[in-house]
């Protein structure tokens, strides 16, 4: 016997049919969305025509005509707006990458310090987290930039942080590393070492599973990682030419000079984000139950093995997803650069270019698209990772 087809019950009682009702709702939602977007598009077109604003992305080829204080790719005032976009994007990515590296490192240190058995250290870490987490990032950036970096002495009286690393109101001057003939060989050696380690670890794991014998892969890996590049160093020479900054007439010459805007922005982002990462790391480690450590000890693993093979893999499962969202937050927060005039994407593209061309819709849409792509790519990678490490229910 066939079940009665619910879709066929058009009639006086049609409204009580849940499938029909949901179809109507969904069609309504589609229609409303289309209507809203059409309304906006039509009014925008009318407004643009009335105000004589050009539309389309043709402006990207026009000459920008303004200078940018930090460019990672070749740029001059004759370059196009499209080039400005790339310069800004590169500057944003630079802050995001360097900020992420330091924020994750600092966050792990502080997070572990909060769990330290040392009362003073754990309290200090707690104070750090509570202070920096509860003050707006923009305020912290203003503080580092206007209250700390700007009033610093001029380059001539600059503070020596490390040998050949100077801090002044012009930012940080540090030795530059210029690539030499040996650089590529050096990098190849490093790559060979990394590939070798991966192969070695696979083999060691297979052997352990097959025979139960462990293999000292950790020590050999370390040896490979240091030994191979060292071999290249002795064979060909130094992998980079080091050029220290030298005091010129008003500012340092040579070396790498980091703008005060860059220093303030990166430092502020690192300090702020590290406070959040510390909390994530702490809760991740706490989430691994004591029984796991006890069980690991009971089957004869020593302290470092327990940490490396039992605690950290389980803690990472809890840590990584919120950690990624903090890294994304850092990337998005780097847009606060506009407040202290670091030339990031928002500052020079959504700021200067928008003011010069007046093409708000295109400029804002393009800027948002960049962040959208970064976010979506990250969450895709995140979902893949989550699927891999998810607990398999047995």
């Amino acid at each position, binding site marked *: 016997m066939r079940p009665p087809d619910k879709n066929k019950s058009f009639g006086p009682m049609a409204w009580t049919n849940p499938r029909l009702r949901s179809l109507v709702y969904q069609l309504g939602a589609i229609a409303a969305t289309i209507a809203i977007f059409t309304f906006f598009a039509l009014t925008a077109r009318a407004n643009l025509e009335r105000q004589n604003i050009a539309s389309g992305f043709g402006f990207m080829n026009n000459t920008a005509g303004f200078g940018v204080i930090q460019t990672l790719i070749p740029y001059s005032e004759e370059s196009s707006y499209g080039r400005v976009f790339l310069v800004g994007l590169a500057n944003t990515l630079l802050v995001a990458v360097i900020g992420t590296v330091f924020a994750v490192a600092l966050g792990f240190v502080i997070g572990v310090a909060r769990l330290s058995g040392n009362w*003073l250290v754990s309290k200090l870490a707690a104070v750090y987290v509570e202070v920096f987490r509860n003050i707006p990032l923009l305020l912290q950036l203003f503080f580092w930039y206007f209250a700390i970096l700007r009033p610093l002495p001029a380059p001539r009286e600059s503070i020596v942080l490390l040998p050949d690393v100077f801090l002044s109101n012009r930012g940080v001057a540090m030795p530059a590393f210029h690539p030499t003939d040996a650089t590529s060989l050096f990098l190849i050696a490093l790559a060979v070492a990394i590939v070798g380690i991966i192969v070695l670890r696979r083999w060691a794991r297979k052997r352990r599973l097959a025979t139960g014998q462990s293999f000292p892969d950790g020590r050999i890996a370390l040896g490979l990682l240091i030994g191979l590049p060292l071999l290249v160093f002795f064979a060909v020479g130094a992998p980079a030419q080091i050029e220290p900054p030298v005091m010129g007439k008003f500012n340092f010459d040579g070396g790498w000079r980091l703008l005060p805007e860059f220093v303030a922005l990166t430092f502020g982002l690192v300090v702020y984000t590290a406070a959040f990462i510390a909390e994530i790391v702490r809760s991740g480690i706490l989430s691994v139950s004591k029984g796991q450590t006890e069980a690991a000890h009971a089957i004869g693993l020593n302290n470092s093995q327990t940490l490396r093979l039992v605690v950290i893999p389980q803690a990472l499962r809890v840590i990584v997803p919120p950690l990624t969202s903090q890294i994304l937050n850092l990337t998005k*927060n780097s*847009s606060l650069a506009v407040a202290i005039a670091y030339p990031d994407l928002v500052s020079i593209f959504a700021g200067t270019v928008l003011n010069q061309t007046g093409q708000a819709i295109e400029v804002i849409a393009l800027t948002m698209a960049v962040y959208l792509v970064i976010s*979506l790519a990250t969450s895709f990678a995140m979902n893949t990772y989550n699927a891999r490490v998810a607990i398999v229910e047995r």
Partner: protein
Amino acid sequence: MTAVKWAHKNLFSGVWNTILTLAAIYLIAVAVPAIFDWMIFSAVWTGDSRAACLVPDAGACWPFVTANLKQFIYGRYPDAELWRVNLTFALGLAGLVPILIPSMPAKRWNLIYLVVAYPLIAIVLLAGDRPGLVGVETSLWGGLLVTLVVAITGIVVSLPLGVLLALGRRSEMPVIRMLSIGFIEFWRAVPLITVLFMASVMLPLFLPEGVSFDNLLRCLIGVALFSSAYMAEVVRGGLQAIPRGQYEAARAVGMSYWQTMGQIILPQALRHVIPGIVNTFIGLFKDTTLVLIVGIFDLLGQVRAQLSDPTWIVPQGATTGYVFAALVFWLFCFGMSRYSVFMERRLDTGHGKN
């Protein structure tokens, strides 16, 4: 004896631990006296112009703060109308305090007052332009007033919107689900600054000729949409924590979708995520500072504006102003985060008993 034992166990239980303790003591010995000296002992406390703070080796210049305190709280709101702002603050506090105390009765009416009645009263009181009240343009609003207006609007609008979006994201209708996901993920992916830029330069292009909002209102719309996406994710977390049996039981007794959600699921889910809501609010509260980038003077923007006042240009002005603003923001945010921890503990014990 016990103190010595405690110190041995917690501070000096080994070589490594002792080194850490000594390093920490060194850090404290360097930083804490310097901070106290700057903020209290070497600070200038009285004076009516910059001259008072131009002492060599002076610490914070507090007269700068006291002289500008009115601007920091109210912005350029007219002197004669300040009672309206104060009354708004007082009415808000009167609604807020009882709702934060779990044992106070009539939570439902209290919530309705806070979320529906109070915003309307506040709009009338602050903007005026009603019989008996002089209109005050939003360009005159500033300081803590704007910070609170932006933050509270954000939360009041984002709660209902966030609930709807969260329900939409868990809906069985694919179109509704896709639209909700698209909306939520879009706003969560972009930085708030670009949203504010969009609100202040792009939104006017999308409105018909003759229709215009003032700058503050446009930013409020941007902030509200932005925070509702974050709120939706918090609420979704709560919805996912509700066991399936609750849905099935509600269906079994013949409740409709909205009855199920409104009377069974949401009351439980929202109570679960109170800490998450408070955390979203803390984030929103800190993010309000971003409005200064589009030319609205919140507390931080007002501090920045007063710093360029020629009567108060002193070397330590920037530090003093920003430290003051940081203290105010810190007190608000830390207070809220403590409250969130308190609620979390309360909810935890309640859950354990079941």
